């Protein structure tokens, strides 16, 4: 491109900045099989670790005999809790302020719990030896039902907490009680409910599910005993936090630990936490002096590595007869499993569940959450959502439909009637959040118009009449869902994890020839950061995105950041990128002015250059300025062109969207066909529309899986049922429908580029849209709510209960 004659449009196109569907730079390696995932790492002398796991959900460990295992050729060590105690690592802190056994210490609390760690030359020998570790168990009474957790005679799960009446989040009132968390105006809410013309009440369970990324969790730990340096590669969504935690619990100084997240095969919240496999690999590498790799298999992943949801919600919503909501109350019983290992900001043991007033102007509300221990795997991670936000969104969106039935009002109309209005933003909700921006009415109207909502309802009416006449055995359901996400954690004043404020960061170096490198505290697991962050920067500093390298995931080189989850990368690290870019631009402006021999204020930025105001033929391109930064800067200015920004956002961002789902249900088989799914997302400023659309497709597919089939369930003995991909529902291309996407744009007023984050919206908004559609199909028969997942048998049972099965 000739810098002299190129038009503004040509110069903008050349940058491939924000708003461009730029092809992803990551893909060249992935399509050739040249990605570098943790299991691809091979180091000289590397050993392989494998776990012995508990077959019981609750049992005392009488003895562990390692002899036969140690006799297997190639076996180097078998670690148990007793081996970890001298180094103080038999237990580890969780992100939720609890402690968790690394290896079973005296007892096991869930099926699949780690009991011993076998280290051998390769995974075959390790597996053979793990079979031979003899563990003698004494079975204990098992607690599976969270509703019985706080019964007086419930078995004591956590003997280590015996007598502890104060937990990490306040008083504990029972030996299986973790915390009670409350927010809102209880008296006011009770009054609103008591005085209401209409109150709708419902029990809504969001079943236990699992993020199940295609790559399981794993790591390689390598302790260099000569200089005391530990390098840890792993599937970490928050590598810097892992380094700090590793330092705190191992007492290795933080500067001697290097944590690297290589390519990650999907995370979805599954890879935020710290798992026993990481600790055991580190210990084994320290003990044996060689690198140790641990990669879990799929069954281990589903059984033990961080579940999501398991929220049992009871809601009451009150309204006037004409459909104006007057109050909302919710109680949650949260099943946290054997240890509280939720990955929430410290002050929020129930995450941001108090976003459960949703998109509606609800005058008064109250929420209380009781967390309890059961004999199940620990977790409670944010599976493709901000902390507990899908639970909240599912709750309010189901409650809105339940209320609509009671009012005999169209569910879309009820929503529109109660939306927070555009002019009310910034809006402070009854449960304390300040919504930054929104235009819900416009989004909903566009959605309803596009899907021809009225015609769908007419068709449904005809279908119901035909069904009643016996002319069809299929029912049409129309699900309307509207969600407000809360993402981008978050302001340090509210949000920290283990005391680490949830800022994020970007460091930029512009090279003399006008190309650049940007390093961030986040880590992509498929979101395409290397592509999109370069686009933000291209628009900010006028260097083509193709000439900007984006690097993340190596704690030795990247600035500190809290990582990627909760849709926080664009809201926080994206903002840091823009802010660091602006620092670059400010210095570049001084250099440009110097080169153009005018005052700083007399030049202005124009796409990829600085021009003299009023004399556009006089300019210096960013590339020229970059070179000058290394040889010809104004007197008193340091050479070089670098900047770093640590961005503490003033607020969260609040993406929203309107979804419509149309289903056809075969009442004889319970089979639900997704006829149509329309998703309108408003994520503020759109950086790369192609990537946004891809994120929406993926999130909707995960929502489909959750709503229609996913479940981690337990039998009464605490055995996990169906922990493999035979049973755990991941839809294939055949079960997945074609997705229709759409958008509106309401920029975030406080974000430097107005972006809000989108990766998790489709999951947060999608689940309730599917569920509402299934419930809606039966609404005329009096159904208000039926539990997820809406798999064939549950749907058929619903039809049976309603008396319409043959």
């Amino acid at each position, binding site marked *: 491109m000739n810098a002299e004659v190129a038009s503004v449009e040509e110069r903008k196109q050349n940058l491939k900045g924000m708003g461009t569907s730029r092809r992803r730079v990551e893909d060249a390696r992935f399509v050739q099989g040249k990605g570098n995932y943790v299991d691809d790492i091979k180091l000289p002398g590397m050993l392989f670790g494998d776990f012995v796991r508990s077959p019981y959900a609750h049992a005392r460990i009488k003895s562990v005999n390692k002899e036969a295992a140690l006799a297997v050729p190639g076996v180097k060590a078998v670690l148990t809790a007793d081996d970890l105690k001298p180094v103080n690592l038999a237990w580890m802190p969780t992100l939720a302020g609890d402690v968790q056994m690394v290896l079973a210490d005296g007892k096991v609390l869930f099926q699949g719990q780690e009991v011993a760690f076998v280290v051998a030359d390769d995974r075959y020998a390790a597996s053979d030896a793990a079979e031979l570790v003899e563990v003698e168990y004494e079975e204990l009474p098992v607690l599976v039902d969270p509703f019985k957790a706080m019964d007086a005679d419930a078995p004591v799960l956590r003997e280590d907490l015996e007598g502890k009446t104060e937990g990490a989040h306040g008083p504990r009132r029972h030996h299986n009680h973790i915390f009670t968390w409350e927010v809102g105006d209880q008296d006011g809410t009770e009054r609103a409910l008591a005085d209401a013309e209409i109150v709708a009440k419902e029990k809504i369970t969001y079943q236990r599910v699992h993020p199940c990324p295609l790559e399981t969790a794993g790591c390689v730990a390598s302790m260099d005993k000569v200089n005391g340096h530990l390098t840890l590669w792993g599937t970490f969504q928050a590598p810097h936090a892992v380094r700090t935690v590793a330092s705190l619990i191992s007492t290795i100084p933080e500067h001697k630990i290097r944590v690297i997240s290589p390519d990650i095969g999907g995370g979805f919240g599954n890879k935020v936490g710290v798992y026993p496999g990481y600790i055991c690999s580190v210990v084994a590498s320290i003990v044996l002096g060689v690198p140790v790799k641990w990669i879990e298999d799929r069954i281990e992943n589903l059984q033990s590595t961080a579940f999501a949801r398991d929220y049992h919600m009871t809601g009451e919503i009150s309204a006037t007869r004409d459909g104006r909501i007057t109050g909302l109350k919710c109680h949650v019983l949260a099943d946290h499993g054997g240890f509280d290992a939720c990955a929430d900001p410290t002050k929020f043991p129930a995450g941001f569940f108090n976003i459960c007033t949703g998109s509606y102007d609800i005058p008064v509300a109250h929420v209380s959450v009781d967390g309890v221990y059961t004999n199940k795997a620990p977790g409670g991670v944010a599976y493709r959502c901000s902390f507990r936000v899908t639970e909240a969104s599912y709750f309010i969106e189901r409650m809105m439909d339940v209320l609509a039935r009671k009012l005999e009002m169209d569910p879309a109309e009820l929503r529109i009637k109660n939306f927070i209005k555009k002019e009310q933003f910034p809006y402070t909700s009854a449960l304390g959040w300040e919504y930054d921006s929104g235009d819900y009415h416009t989004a909903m109207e566009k959605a309803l118009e596009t899907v021809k909502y009225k015609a769908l309802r007419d068709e449904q009416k005809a279908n119901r009449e035909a069904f009643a006449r016996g002319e069809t055995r299929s029912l049409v359901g129309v699900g309307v869902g509207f969600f407000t996400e809360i993402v981008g954690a978050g302001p340090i004043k509210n949000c920290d994890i283990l005391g680490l404020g949830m800022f994020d960061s970007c460091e930029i170096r512009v090279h003399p020839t006008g190309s650049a490198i940007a390093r961030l505290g986040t880590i992509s697991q498929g979101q395409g950061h290397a592509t999109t962050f370069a686009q933000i920067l291209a628009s900010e500093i006028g260097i083509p995105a193709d000439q900007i390298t984006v690097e993340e995931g190596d704690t030795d080189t990247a600035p500190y950041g809290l990582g990627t989850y909760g849709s926080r990368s664009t809201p926080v690290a994206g903002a840091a990128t823009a802010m660091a870019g602006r620092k670059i631009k400010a210095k570049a402006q001084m250099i440009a002015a110097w080169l153009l021999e005018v005052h700083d204020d007399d030049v202005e930025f124009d796409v990829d250059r600085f021009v003299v105001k009023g004399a556009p033929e006089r300019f210096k391109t960013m590339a020229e300025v970059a070179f000058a930064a290394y040889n010809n800067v104004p007197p008193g200015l340091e050479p070089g062109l670098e900047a770093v920004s640590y961005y503490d956002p003033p607020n969260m961002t609040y993406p929203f969207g309107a979804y419509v789902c149309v289903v056809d249900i075969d009442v004889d088989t319970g089979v639900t066909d997704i006829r149509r799914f329309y998703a309108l997302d408003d994520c503020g400023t759109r950086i790369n529309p192609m990537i946004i659309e891809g994120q929406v497709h993926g999130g909707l597919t995960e929502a489909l899986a959750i709503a229609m089939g996913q479940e981690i369930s337990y039998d009464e003995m605490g055995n996990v049922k169906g922990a493999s991909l035979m049973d755990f529902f991941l839809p294939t291309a055949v079960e997945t429908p074609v997705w229709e996407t759409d958008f509106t744009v309401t920029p975030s007023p406080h974000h430097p580029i107005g972006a809000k984050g989108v990766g998790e919206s489709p999951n947060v908004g999608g689940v309730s849209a599917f569920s509402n559609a299934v419930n809606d199909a039966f609404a005329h028969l009096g159904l208000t709510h039926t539990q997820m997942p809406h798999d064939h*048998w549950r749907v058929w049972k619903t039809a049976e209960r309603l008396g319409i099965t043959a």
Partner: protein
Amino acid sequence: MIPGSFEYHRPESVDGAIALLNEHGDEARLLAGGHSLIPMMKLRMAVPSHIVDLQAIDSLHGISEEGGELVIGALTTQHEVLTSDLLAAKCPIIPEAAALIADPQVRYCGTIGGNVANGDPGNDMPAIMQALGARFRAVGPNGSRDIAARDYYEAAYFTELEENEVLTQIRIPTPAVGHGSAYEKQKRKIGDYATAAAAVILTVESGRCISASIALTNVASTPLYAEAAAGALVGTDLGADAVDTAVRLAEEITEPTSDGRGPADFRTHVAGIMVRRAIARAQKNAG
């Protein structure tokens, strides 16, 4: 998930395979496509110390018609079955069912012999073979014998096949020209076993059902040959009463377990729906 160690054998003849089975007794397992056995071995639910891989035995491959019988070699893959012109023309229910088994990769490996032989109640071909009146040829140290598919299954993973026998062929009386057939299978997703499935084969003349056979998949510890249900159709015009009776009789013999696919009563109900739909479709494509 790592399988235990074993010694590997790749005989080139059926006799060679039988000799290995004789030598190693219950420590040996036959390996065809491996997609049932290998996952079991990875879970260490099966730990054979000898694996006898049948892939090099040429005589076990292929599909042909011999004197009124369709003969399918045990090592014929589901993919080959699915793409066989001969079967498409003479016995379309077999490729129809193959298309509903697992996924493309598994069908390239999975064999029809393995599917019928191992006695997994989730497999689809056993019920198809019962409906078709197929016989399985078993070759052992004392020669060969044929076992009717309807007599072959004793319980889950227990069959009439002796430890030292190899199931070499499936022999199916070529169905009458103009017969109608259908396999209806409900499953949760691609790759799943049936919640319930039904195979129906009919011959119809001038609107009257001349012969019928029905068999069910995955609603008991073995495939179920629903003789009484089929009997209720023969001689009728396949009207509502006859179909209702057949459905009821089929439902009556089911004994499904409750699992992730649903509780037992649901699976019995689905079996009935599958029978009903398979009858309707078989009737439609008869003639």
